[in-house]
């Protein structure tokens, strides 16, 4: 029995090969919605913001749920790996701990059993929780299209809210992260309206690692979400931090610079001023925590 006839009619299909996907996209392009975990898409469909003639499930394509790690190349995570699988995987917790931290902040446990890494990144939400860590880890996405696979750095992938560099007939198959520099420590700090289960008002990922080449002795990478059309890094702030011996004052100055770069809009969750101040606070807190961990290790 159909309890909710309000939802427009659609077909559900499981793609078995990439060719299935390309063919359907070519034949019925506008009607097809690519499905990963569905934790956002289904809600949008229910609310009438999205519709589909065909829901094409990509999760069963070969390799989409695989995780592989090598010391030389780093980690390759299939786009359909769920956030809970990601968070608990030993290769992730051992070498890419900031990904686990980030995954654990998304929604709730039940939701994370469906929500996927690929879905979180392809959704291109400015508040995507996986994105700041994925940026500071300098990830690359593998995109599959009718002309073959191509690889793209994540900082080129998001082009606006909900918009990616994916071409018409392409889909994401995996995300690769090189091994972080030796001794790296990472922290993702997320501010939501409640401690768990909410979207980020501001999220800041900080990755720090020893680098004797720079005056600071430590290099930082900083990724920030929810406060611009896309998730972004702040290279000018990262440079400023590398240039002088570290102190609380320098960290404060750097956090202030990050606040200046941030460009939030007022939304249902917070005002512009609040978000900017929280960029300042969370950046400082993240830097301080990572710095302390590095000097104590």
């Amino acid at each position: 029995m159909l309890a909710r006839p309000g939802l427009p009619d659609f077909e559900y299909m499981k793609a078995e090969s990439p060719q299935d996907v390309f063919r359907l996209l070519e034949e019925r392009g506008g009607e097809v919605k690519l499905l990963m975990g569905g934790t956002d898409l289904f809600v949008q469909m229910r609310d009438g913001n999205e519709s589909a003639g065909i829901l094409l499930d990509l999760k069963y394509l070969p390799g989409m749920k695989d995780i592989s790690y090598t010391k030389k190349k780093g980690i390759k995570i299939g786009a359909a790996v769920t956030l809970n699988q990601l968070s608990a995987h030993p290769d992730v917790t051992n070498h890419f701990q900031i990904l686990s931290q980030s995954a654990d902040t998304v929604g709730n446990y039940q939701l994370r059993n469906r929500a996927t890494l690929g879905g979180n990144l392809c959704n291109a939400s400015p508040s995507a929780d996986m994105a700041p860590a994925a940026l500071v880890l300098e990830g690359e996405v593998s995109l599959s299209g009718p002309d073959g696979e191509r690889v793209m750095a994540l900082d080129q992938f998001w082009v606006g809210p909900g918009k990616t560099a994916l071409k018409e007939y392409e889909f994401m198959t995996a995300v690769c992260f090189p091994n972080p520099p030796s001794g790296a420590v990472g922290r993702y700090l997320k501010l939501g309206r409640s401690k768990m289960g909410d979207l980020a008002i501001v999220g800041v990922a900080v990755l720090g690692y020893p680098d004797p080449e720079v005056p600071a002795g430590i290099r930082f990478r900083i990724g920030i979400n929810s406060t611009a059309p896309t998730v972004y890094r702040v290279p000018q702030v990262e440079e400023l931090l590398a240039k002088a011996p570290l102190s609380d004052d320098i960290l404060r100055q750097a956090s202030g610079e990050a606040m200046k770069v941030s460009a939030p809009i007022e939304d249902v969750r917070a005002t512009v001023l609040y978000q900017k101040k929280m960029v300042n606070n969370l950046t400082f807190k993240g830097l301080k925590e990572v710095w302390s961990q590095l000097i104590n290790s």
Partner: protein
Amino acid sequence: MENTFAISVTVNGTPYQRSVDPRTLLSDFLRYDLGLTGTHVGCEHGVCGACTVLLDGEPVRSCLLFAPQVDGHEILTVEGLGTLDDLHPLQEAFRETHALQCGFCTPGILTTLLPYLEENPNPTEEEIREAISGNLCRCTGYQHIIDAVKLAAENMNP
């Protein structure tokens, strides 16, 4: 031609073959097609946790799945836990400690906790709070639920 999708699914140990409209939510399939009304539907946005069921042993929101997606899989609903005459130790603990008032959220909390307690036999209070953070309860204030989980943990792992 009517647009239907044939599914085979095992629910609480019983195999079912059904032909469904693809837009049937799993929660509606369980309630209306199979008559298993223990699974409750609250927010329908993946927030409240009332509709939680186990999909191949893992807790998921049945309001965020369409029925065709569970083709070939196993589902456990609250009806699969215990019976009125023979309650599951987790249900027993909820009764014992008054961990429910209206009871609307209870099936989702039970199904969330079942695999959790198997993996975490001795959770701390903080861990229990985190484990049920994806389930909203508007009656109890959660304290008695936490008491129930502690009691269940003791009884399930003597």
